């Protein structure tokens, strides 16, 4: 392990240890169950917004977005816009009413709005599904970061992250998690913004351009390991040495191969060696030349591309409100007004963060173009040394980025574990608080087992799928539950189930099969465009058919959610619960 690896490892360890210490410190301030679970709502708006942002900005999301920009260019920008815009939708439709409803989780909300044990069970199952689906890429991301920085095997990163997360969660509950995550947001932001600024100034003084009608070139001799079957495209003839199954032929012993312009297929396990200066082949269907990359609609603006963009936008806008760890955070606001203000601060914070991510993604096209072919998710981690050279400054910045990534997967994972454990604890175990620790451990078991046993897929593939599931299930439930008095329990259950089946089917299809390259395949990768309207429609139609089961006190419930607190019309769920 060389100096850069050691620096990176130390930086990540420092993040882990600091998080654990802040988490432990939280124990001394924890006095009761409400402190433990929801931080007593004594967290200020900026601290709360930092915590929300810290929790939301997962390593998987920002590494995946940088990778998307590296591969897709201008079209990849939509992914970042979708994830930030999700908070606007949350602000417009959900933030204040949800806070006023006093619901702590989606099952809580569902039960408060439509007293139906069946609906509550369905929601519990969906929370566990979404949480597990989202934890999986986080843990695998931890493995990827550790592997990229130090060369350790991926499972060690996943296990290490799981242990640190459990320590913080078990140690301090939500209140300490709040401080941990607020700290981690600022750490992440600094860890990306500083390298982005340094590389930007380098770029400005460097007189290089990203605007050339040619493919990017390998900046140095490069070895590309192909981890999944891949279709590549080159616009210039390229010669390289290879081992593995290439274009259906077995190539052995680093024999030289020459590709004519056009499409080529490399099977998983292939190893390609390119000399410095050769053109970089692009993934099929992505812009191959820099000029196509920098302009939007690099693929010609076809139907597929439009479907991808709009479906990503819908999933991001409507999926954010359905993520379990995001909702829990709103409960820690003192009231609906604070919930709105917090959301605005969050919008500003993650907006600023994503500007840095976009910068890094764009520079990675210039300095680490070899990652276009395979392993794009590591682009942000490898960029500092690639841009600044293999020297102390490069190492330090690389260690900083690694620390930021570590903070990111720790923050998101602990948020997810807290909310998953909260649901397990109240709905499945129905226990007292000391068993919350057991719930936390249980909620980590399945994702960790999956993380070490399943091949990691690109974040650009997995993260939008999770958002699509959330958008197709909880978004209709929350939006209709808050704004439409005609919603009934049968309607809500059917809608959630339809959304879950449609989006879940596409998750299975996308993860376990190779999808055709046509609009149908695109929609299976990005199902939100179909599954979200389907879930809304089902919910409305079935509710209309079962008009009789509108709860008799629906008006009062709606009033609680919409009336300003100072009128005293609100309920306080936690406080009331504590009475019984």
């Amino acid at each position, binding site marked *: 392990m060389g100096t850069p690896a050691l620096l990176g490892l130390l930086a990540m360890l420092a993040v882990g240890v600091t998080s654990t210490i802040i988490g432990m410190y939280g124990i001394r301030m924890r006095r009761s169950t409400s402190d433990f679970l929801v931080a007593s709502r004594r967290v200020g708006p900026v601290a709360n917004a930092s915590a929300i942002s810290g929790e939301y900005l997962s390593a998987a999301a920002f590494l995946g977005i940088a990778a998307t920009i590296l591969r897709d260019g201008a079209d990849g920008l*939509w992914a970042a816009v979708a994830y930030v815009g999700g908070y606007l939708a949350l602000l417009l439709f959900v933030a204040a009413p949800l806070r006023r409803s006093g619901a702590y989780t989606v099952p809580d909300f569902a039960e408060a709005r439509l007293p139906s044990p069946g609906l509550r069970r369905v929601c519990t199952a969906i929370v566990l599904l979404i949480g597990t689906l989202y934890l999986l890429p986080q843990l695998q991301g931890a493995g990827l970061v550790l592997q990229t920085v130090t060369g350790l095997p991926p499972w060690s990163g996943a296990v290490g992250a799981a242990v640190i997360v459990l320590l913080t969660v078990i140690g301090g509950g939500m209140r300490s998690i709040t401080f941990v995550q607020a700290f981690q947001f600022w750490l992440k932001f600094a860890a990306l913004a500083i390298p982005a600024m340094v590389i930007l100034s380098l770029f400005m003084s460097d007189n290089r351009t990203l605007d050339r009608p040619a493919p990017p070139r390998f900046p140095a001799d490069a070895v590309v390991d192909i981890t999944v079957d891949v279709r590549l495209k080159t616009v210039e003839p390229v010669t390289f040495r290879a081992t593995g199954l290439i274009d259906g032929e077995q190539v052995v012993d680093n024999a030289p191969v020459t590709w004519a312009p056009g499409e080529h297929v490399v099977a998983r396990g292939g190893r390609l060696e390119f000399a410095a200066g050769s053109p970089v082949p692009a993934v099929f269907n992505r812009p191959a030349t820099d000029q196509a990359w920098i302009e939007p609609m690099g693929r010609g603006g076809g139907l597929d591309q439009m479907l991808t963009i709009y479906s990503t936008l819908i999933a991001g806008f409507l999926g954010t409100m359905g993520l379990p760890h995001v909702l829990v955070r709103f409960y820690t606001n003192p009231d609906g007004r604070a919930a709105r203000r917090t959301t605005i601060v969050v919008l500003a914070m993650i907006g600023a963060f994503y500007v840095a991510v976009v910068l890094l993604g764009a520079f990675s096209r210039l300095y680490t173009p070899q990652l276009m072919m395979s392993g794009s998710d590591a682009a942000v981690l490898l960029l500092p040394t690639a841009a600044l050279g293999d020297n102390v400054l490069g190492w330090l910045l690389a260690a900083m980025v690694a620390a930021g990534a570590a903070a990111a997967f720790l923050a998101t994972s602990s948020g997810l574990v807290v909310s998953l454990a909260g649901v397990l604890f109240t709905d499945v175990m129905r226990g007292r608080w000391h068993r919350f620790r057991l719930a936390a451990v249980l909620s980590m078991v399945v994702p960790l087992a999956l993380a070490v046993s399943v091949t990691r897929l690109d974040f650009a593939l997995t993260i939008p799928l999770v958002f699509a599931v959330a958008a197709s299930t909880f978004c209709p439930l929350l939006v209709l539950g808050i704004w439409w008095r005609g919603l009934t329990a049968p309607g809500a259950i059917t809608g959630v189930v339809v959304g879950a089946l449609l989006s879940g089917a596409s998750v299975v299809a996308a993860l376990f099969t190779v999808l055709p390259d046509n609009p149908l395949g695109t929609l299976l990768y990005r199902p939100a465009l179909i599954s979200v309207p389907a879930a809304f429609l089902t919910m409305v139609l079935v509710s209309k058919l079962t008009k009789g089961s509108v*709860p008799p006190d629906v008006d009062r419930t709606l009033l609680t959610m919409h009336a*300003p607190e100072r009128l005293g019309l609100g309920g306080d769920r936690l406080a009331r619960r504590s009475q019984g």
Partner: protein
Amino acid sequence: MRPGPEDDGPGDRYDADGDRYGDRDEDGADSGALWLHEEIQRRIAAGRRASKGRHSRHEVASSTTSISYVPRHSTATPGPGALPPEPVSTPARGLPRVPAAWSSPAPPARVTPAEAPEPPAAAVVPADAPAPEARPAPSPRAPSPPAEGHRRTMLAGGVAKVPVEEQGAPPPYRSGDLHGVRKARLDAVPIVPGDPDAPDPDPVETMDSRRVRVVLSERRGGARPVRTVVDVQEGTGVGELLRSNLIGSQLTVALRFAVGTGLALGVLPVLFAMFPEIGRTELLGLRLPWLLLGVLVYPFLVLVGMWHTRTAERVEQNFADHVQD
């Protein structure tokens, strides 16, 4: 989920916020839609003629024009455990807490929709312990006897009081009799003949005839009383109107912002596809799409969020004004 004994969670902060809001109310002079105001006045009047049952406390305090009203303070006795009342001259503070609650705070098995409607509401009233709101200015004509006045319920131990008017035979309350307390609230409304909008020369007398009832409650701060709140909560004509108006306007606001933002962003891919020149235009050293989607879109989203919050809070302010006026 049972908090430990030290759980003093949301209460203190709530109270602090409530006070702040209360202050804000006084200078928030947004009149709202005129038609709505008129409709409310009409319905208040109609409702009052139809049933003398429920209207606001403010009205209670301002309805001494009633000739048929006989103060009964001579017979009023403090409820068990009642504390000495505070002077009537305490300035009015904000609104009462008469919360509409979730009908089913308990685990799902315990509440079925069929039995839900009334009991939960009743159960909540004492829990939030409304204290009297519009406290009339002290009047030389009717100094309130200390024993019968009512006082705010800011007891540290979580004791809250519901003012109970002694008009007619009071029902036999037990402390903890939730329905009784709730009924008392309704009974406490005096008969108000004549024009409800008529100015009221002597607001104090009605207050005298209340006694104080002590009810155990959860610890929450600002219990502040009111009037139309009961209407809104009980779903009477006025309340129904205010409520549907509030939710309707908020939904309109949210949809308007969502559609506006959605169009602004959603039209961009189409534009980029139809006019590739946009992608080649440079502005501030950046390609236009990168400038728009990489940088400017974020401040845009924040501004839309701030604008929406302002609008939504104005709608809430209107609602609050109508409920309180």
